[in-house]
């Protein structure tokens, strides 16, 4: 019978890739709202248009976010979808689950919602898709009693997420999962109660491969790196060569041309001072090359998608930071809190941190958060002569002169 009822969606049950229609049908066997969703989406397919209205403000007691209100624009025809809200559940760091934890989520969602999920949403949360206002509090109660909590939505800290890191990756420069868990817990208030100009996303990648795509989509990216030398295991290099692996191809692709390779001795060396830690050679030869030993992270700020002023990639604001579990990541906390304070004070409504810096200039930002300018922050220095001088610059000059020394930057080699 379903064959005739939904001819368009039935087309999407064909083909080899797993079908979302089949998934909704599985829930529809038990849940009228999932059944109604099939009909509504069929209708969208017929009419080429969306049938959802703008979200409304709904939630659970004590929280300002974590639930996305969603209402169908045809409530009379689709009473089961009159309210069809999303609950964002904060994922465990690294998206690891035991089968029991996963079943617990399923049981709660069977009781309170459509039985449909997104595993996972783009911010990292487990998304429970579709319930009514009436069920929200009970659903939250059951989640919380079972050890789950809500993620972020609205103008607040969004659920931080992290790459798999030390749990399964030899490239991890710090404990991404621990840092993610730590930050999420340290800023529960910022996560659950929107009080900022707009959203703020933190993503954590253990190395420059950036598996969480943080540069592209996090306001603040924490990306692992190291300051010393790539560790080379020459025995393993020989093995690669003996197995016919093309080491020269790796050498050619190195962006800084800092790999030397002696084909006769089967020896590879890296000019570490000039290596920019792009990961290419390590990715290609993981058995022979390892990240360095003096590890930490680079902090980038400002990444966002196109809306409104254009997309930005995150840019370097702190070339190297130590991420110490022992001192509770204090340096990172200090930096984060200074950034938030400045942004909160100066941003307009719906202005992301990157856009604010674009409007106010990096110089004022760096001053406000006590960061020293560094050449690592730019691709190249300014090309125009339009720069500002501040009273404190003149004061500093005066002090230097009075002390009979040369003004910084005016030294000339004899």
């Amino acid at each position, binding site marked *: 019978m379903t064959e005739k009822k939904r001819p*368009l969606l039935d*087309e*999407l049950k064909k*083909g080899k*890739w*797993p079908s*979302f229609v089949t*998934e*909704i049908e599985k829930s529809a066997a038990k849940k009228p709202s999932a059944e109604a969703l099939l009909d509504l*989406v069929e209708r969208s*397919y017929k*009419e*080429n*248009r969306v*049938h959802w209205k703008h979200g409304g403000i709904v939630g659970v*007691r004590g*929280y300002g976010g974590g639930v996305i209100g969603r209402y169908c624009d045809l409530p009379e025809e689709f009473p089961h979808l009159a309210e069809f809200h*999303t609950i964002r559940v904060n994922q465990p*760091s690294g*998206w*690891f*689950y*035991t*089968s*029991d934890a*996963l*079943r617990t989520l399923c049981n709660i*969602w069977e009781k309170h919602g459509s*039985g*449909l999920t*997104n*595993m*996972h949403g*783009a911010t990292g949360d487990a998304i429970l898709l579709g319930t009514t206002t009436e069920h929200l509090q009970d659903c939250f*109660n059951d989640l*919380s009693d079972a*050890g789950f*909590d809500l993620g972020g939505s609205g103008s607040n800290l969004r659920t931080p*997420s992290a790459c*798999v890191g030390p749990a*399964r990756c*030899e490239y*991890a420069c710090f404990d991404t999962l621990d840092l993610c868990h730590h930050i*999420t817990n340290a800023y529960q208030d910022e996560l*659950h109660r929107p009080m900022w100009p707009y959203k703020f996303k933190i993503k954590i990648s253990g190395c420059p491969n*950036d598996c969480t*795509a943080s*540069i592209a989509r996090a306001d603040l990216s924490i990306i692992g790196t190291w300051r010393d030398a790539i560790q080379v295991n020459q025995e393993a290099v020989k093995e690669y060569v003996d197995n016919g692996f093309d080491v020269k*191809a790796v050498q050619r*692709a*190195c962006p800084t041309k800092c790999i030397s390779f002696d084909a006769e001795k089967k020896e590879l060396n890296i000019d570490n001072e000039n290596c920019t830690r*792009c990961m*290419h050679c390590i990715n290609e030869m993981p*058995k022979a090359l390892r990240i360095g030993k003096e590890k930490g992270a680079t902090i980038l700020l400002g990444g966002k*998608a196109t*809306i409104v002023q*254009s*997309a930005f*990639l995150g840019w370097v604001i702190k070339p190297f930071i130590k991420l110490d579990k022992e001192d509770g990541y204090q340096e990172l906390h200090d930096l984060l809190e200074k950034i938030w304070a400045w942004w909160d004070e100066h941003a*307009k409504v719906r202005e992301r941190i990157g856009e604010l810096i674009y409007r106010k200039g990096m110089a004022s930002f760096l001053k406000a958060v006590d960061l020293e300018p560094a050449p690592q922050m730019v691709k190249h220095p300014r090309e125009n002569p339009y720069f500002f001088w501040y009273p404190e610059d003149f004061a500093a000059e005066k002090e230097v002169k009075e002390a009979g020394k040369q003004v910084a930057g005016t030294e000339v080699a004899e």
Partner: protein
Amino acid sequence: MVNPYYAKTDIGPPYFWDMLPEIIKNNYGKWLYHEHVKPGVLKHVGEAGELYTVRVGSPRLLSIDTLRWFADIADKYCDGHLRFTSRHNVEFLLTDPSKIDALIEEVEAAGWPVGGTGKSLKNLIHTQGWIHCHSAATDASGTVKAVMDDLYEYFKKDDLPAKLKISMACCLNMCGAVHCSDIAFVGVHRKIPRVQEGLANTCEIPNVVASCPTGAISPNPKEKSVIINEEKCMYCGNCFSVCPSLPIADPENDGIAVFVGGKVSNTRSGPAFSKLVIPFIPNEPPRWEKLVVAIRNLVEIWVKDAKKGERYGEWIERIGWEKFFEKANLPFTDKHIDDFIFSVPTFRTTTQFKFTNNK
């Protein structure tokens, strides 16, 4: 309500450590290297032993019936442990390599593809579309299903020039940040929002005016409403995000734009935005034939022409965008030339370029 119960707030996410299998706890931070055993199967070697991962593609929208079945598979083969990836895959974590083939056989027999590792097509990341969002200019799940059905073979093999990441977003909000993907397709509008009566009852007019990136919106105090300047509006929909009285969805004219050549990893050339190559493909539910053909064409010209190791954008950097349009047999139009605020640095300021067929 009688005796309402309010559970504890701010308990934070479950502690990840409790979710990890023993092999990971023992090897935590002590991994030595990894190998690609075969498409969809990774082997990680650490000081305390070996871990095998079987990666399974999913449509992201999953019923709890399926999740329970995944949990059963994890019990049967993986001592009850599994994880999800940021690209909507499910990963089964095994210590006993002799179980890998049986696991693969069981999940594939049930219709779940194993693949997406190494130099393969990764699972397509996407957003909500007509399933759950008011803002969508096209559907997400359906377009993705049609494209993945067509490119299925590339998910299953790992002999592409490099990894291939395709992403989709159903409006310019781009949840999921598709703007740095090898290939991205995005739902777009092409007509200005329709100003509805009673706007001032639902929206703050100054906020609406301020939301427009091109300054196309001005207040209309007489009507307690706003006026949209047709010449300035480029249909981004941001005003609709802040004000429901400015609907922009349009069944006749909405569709999809395609961008290519972005990446996020810092490898070699570093992160880059994707760039516009196809300004418009009409919505064709349920199977989006033109979109599917267009994406396949984009994939195939890269597979044919790229050198080993070249991501999509690295390949184009080498041959030049003018050559790309020739090879892709795509028209180059006024839409391809940036006229937004950061446009000028994208213009060619040298006499070095290649001549192509048509130009």
